[in-house]
């Protein structure tokens, strides 16, 4: 039945669905997950790295977290090659805005411009939509810290805590249970690691399988994007009791 409406992204099925868009979302459901938590003094992003091979050399320190501008960063779940295109356009948009107004681009506008691009591929007939979900963490002078989640259809919304990728529903419901307003950044890191440790397939968390990045204000009042080093991350994991110390085997 659905075959006739599969081949084009731009055509509704008789039930009023866009299959290609739904498939794209399905694809993200298998990707490494990412969690974002908004706290009163910053935004926390954690991501699960899918380690494909021990022999693989990664050129960058992060594979799921990307800095878009000085005040915005994002976490990705989905097809990385698609994500690279979108990240590139987002960076260009942010710079274009700065060029025109000599001010950092408001976070929601950046997310919106990216989602416009995503939406375009569900209507104007590219071969397929972008198979990517994003978590955007940022700060601007109008609305302070913000966290946005976007999906392949081009929908986006602001969240206090959100999860994308594999097991995102389980993660989402855990976040819903444990999130408190007025949460501090430190507690947010702990909560994010805890949730990820429970929703990930692997039995024990290690810093090789994880990425942690934060957006916050430095004491001088500048926005800072900071990626947690593997060493500090390992210590955090032990501190919060979400993993066994390296020496032991479980």
């Amino acid at each position, binding site marked *: 039945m659905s075959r006739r409406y599969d081949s084009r992204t731009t055509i509704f099925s008789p039930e009023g669905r866009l299959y290609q868009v739904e498939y794209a979302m399905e694809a993200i459901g298998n990707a490494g997950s990412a969690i974002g938590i908004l706290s009163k003094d910053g935004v926390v992003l954690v991501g699960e790295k899918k380690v494909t091979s021990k022999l693989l050399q990664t050129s960058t320190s992060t594979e799921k977290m990307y800095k878009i501008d000085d005040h915005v960063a994002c976490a990705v779940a989905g097809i990385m090659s698609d994500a690279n295109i979108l990240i590139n356009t987002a960076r260009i948009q942010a710079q274009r805005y700065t*060029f*025109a*107004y000599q*001010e950092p681009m408001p976070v*929601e506008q950046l997310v919106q411009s990216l989602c416009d691009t995503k939406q375009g591929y569900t209507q104007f007939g590219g071969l397929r939509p972008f198979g990517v979900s994003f978590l955007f963490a940022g700060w601007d002078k109008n609305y302070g810290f913000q966290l946005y989640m976007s999906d392949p259809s081009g929908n986006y919304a602001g969240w206090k805590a959100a999860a994308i990728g594999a097991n995102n529903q389980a993660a989402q419901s855990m976040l819903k249970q444990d999130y408190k307003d007025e949460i501090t950044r430190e507690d947010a890191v702990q909560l994010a690691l805890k949730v990820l440790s429970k929703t990930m397939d692997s039995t024990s968390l290690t810093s090789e399988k994880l990425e942690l990045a934060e957006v916050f204000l430095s004491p001088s009042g500048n926005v800072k994007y900071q990626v947690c080093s593997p060493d500090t991350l390992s210590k955090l994991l032990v501190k919060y009791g979400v993993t066994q110390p390296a020496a032991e085997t479980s």
Partner: protein
Amino acid sequence: MECVFGLVGDGFVIVVADTSAVNSILVHKTNEDKIMKLDSHKLVAASGESGDRVQFTEYIQKNVALYQFRNGIPLTTAAAANFTRGELATALRKNPYMVNILLAGYDKETGPSLYYIDYIATLHKVDKGAFGYGSYFCLSMMDRHYHSGMSVEKAVELVDKCIMEIRSRLVVAPPNFVIKIVDRDGAREYAWRESVKDTPVAQPEALEV
């Protein structure tokens, strides 16, 4: 000939423009308002080719309004000034606008500010600025009498000094001026300084009787 000037005071900006619409040696009217309200807290005082002036300032005004509609937040004065400069700069190499602009605004975070933008897309943040033949007189008046943190009364006094100087020293002095202010409460007309009035045109219905 044209005189547009402005200065930043304590929590406000005051801008002044002559109100003469002139072509060659002919004065068409003396009540042409050359200071446009860009949005609730911004003013643009412009001089230059009158067609370009109206066209360009309206274009900027509409774009600032569009930004506000789309994004639900207003542009800051600095952003609006940089945008205006950018538009002038791109136009400069294609079909340049002959307009000089003083952009005044008030922002919650940064307070009052005044930007000087000329037709070749120069942008400066200034405390006092002027365009046109009148600038020769008001700039020196303001150099002598301006100080930071002036009250509205002191600023208006200085503005009147400038107008007086223009009227007494400039051969082609315009007769009338409009003074506008922008502060925390918004942009508004403050006063007119008129030495001649256009004779009121008889209304059609008055003629019929």
